[in-house]
């Protein structure tokens, strides 16, 4: 990870303050507060319907909070990798042209970006012909074009097999090292994702628990949400958890019930 001064580290890139989102009468998020700081990898985990995608959209400004506020640093450069890109086969679009949407970039920069994510050979292929794994790397190459301060990934490894997504997360870690950007991702692949994260936020309409991966994996709130079905995640961390946690959270734990 690149060196950052303490001051830079304290300066948040995106901050959610007590955010509540209601959509069509249903409360999707209640009183969510979180901060993304430069250079850190933050992962949001949570079961289906826990508001992960809504939280991401709120942080990106696509959804306006009903209460509370989202503060992004002015002029923040965001690189966004969507969950998946369905492209209609009637739309002819070479990979290089795709990287120039919506803003034209020099071809050399686009090729360099593709090289960085390991898909330089795909530059002249049609986007509609790419496999899931190739598509994700092309999307990642597009996201890093503007030298982002924060990379945002929404379930970016959906449809990839386990070794494919592990390789993808290693690539994300490498990129974070090269670019010094923060990474914010939403994922359901707990064990793979958590290992690569600096901080994990467990979400279920509200923030259930938050902290280092080991801390979250052993938190009762997390276990209540994911049960024992997530052997991978637990097995990964359990061996170093023979000590007890006293969870000094300053918020109620409704969801754990």
């Amino acid at each position: 990870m690149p060196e950052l001064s303490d001051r830079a580290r304290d300066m948040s890139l995106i901050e959610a303050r007590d955010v509540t989102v209601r959509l069509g009468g249903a409360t999707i998020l209640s009183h969510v507060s979180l901060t993304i700081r430069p250079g850190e990898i933050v992962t949001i985990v949570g079961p289906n319907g826990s508001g992960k995608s809504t939280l991401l959209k709120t942080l990106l400004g696509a959804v306006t909070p009903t209460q509370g506020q989202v503060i992004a640093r002015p002029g923040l450069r965001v690189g966004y990798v969507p969950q998946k890109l369905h492209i209609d086969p009637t739309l002819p679009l070479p990979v290089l042209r795709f990287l120039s949407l919506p803003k034209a970039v020099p071809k050399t920069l686009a090729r360099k970006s593709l090289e960085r994510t390991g898909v330089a050979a795909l530059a002249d292929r049609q986007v509609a012909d790419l496999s899931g794994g190739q598509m994700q790397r092309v999307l990642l190459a597009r996201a890093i074009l503007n030298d982002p301060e924060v990379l945002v990934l929404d379930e970016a490894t959906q449809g990839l097999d386990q070794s494919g997504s592990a390789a993808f997360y290693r690539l994300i870690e490498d990129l974070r090292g090269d670019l010094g950007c923060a990474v914010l991702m939403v994922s359901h692949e707990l064990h793979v994702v958590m290992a690569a994260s600096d901080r994990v936020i467990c979400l279920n309409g509200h923030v259930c628990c938050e902290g280092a991966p080991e801390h979250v994996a052993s938190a009762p709130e997390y276990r209540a949400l994911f049960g024992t079905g997530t052997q991978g995640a637990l097995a990964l961390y359990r061996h170093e958890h023979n000590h007890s946690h006293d969870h000094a959270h300053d918020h109620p734990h409704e969801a754990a019930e």
Partner: protein
Amino acid sequence: MILDSFIWRAALAGVGVALAAAPLGCFVVWRRLAYFGDATAHAAILGVALALSAGLPVFLGALVIALAMASLVASLSGRNVAMDTLLGVLAHSALAIGIVAVSFLDGVRIDLMAFLFGDILAVSRMDLAVIWGGAMAVVGLLGWRWSALLTATLNEDLARASGIDPQREKLILTLTLAVVVAVSIKVVGVLLIGAMLIVPPAAARVFAKTPEQMAVLAGGIGVTSALGGLAASWHLDTPTGPTIVSVAAAIFLACTIFGLIRRTRQQA
């Protein structure tokens, strides 16, 4: 002066409509809005009836009603309704109600066929000015928003993250669709506007490697269809609007067969 000749006016009108329909038609194809285009076009006949009864220009009535229909459909498409069924209901009801409305207009002698299938040989200088004005506005608007429209077509979240409002881009498509429908009535009629939107881009897809190539090729195919259809209808004494669409369909068929042969050769 070539505008004195009705055949030249017809040719220019056909070219104008083809040029505007091509880039918009690409988005209609890419976004799978074929039925959306039909519903808007069919609704325009109601606008024609209203305009005639109020003594207003037909173009204006068609534009207003097409815009209303396109906005209605666009606003419904964001919600959780069965779009396919709803569009079917709207498209056919609008057409039926429009025709019934036209039949109430006694006193004025109206050639219903002219509005359903176009009456390109009767294009006046004023019509020509409206067609080209509308067509240039559509091409200009689409050209100006091209990259944003393409990004929003690929993925709305991706567009938003790039600072593009997908709703605004959708509004631009809705607006241009209404304009294209309004200026096309005289040329191909409400029933065949959908064909002018879909068929040339579908044929162009076989050869296009980029979105821009597809739009330009579709324009070329549209213009060829308009001029070829006009010539064919002159010699064969057939209705011009349907002949134009028939030529476009023939080009589509030839392109598709060529594409299939090329693919089997590549695989062999």
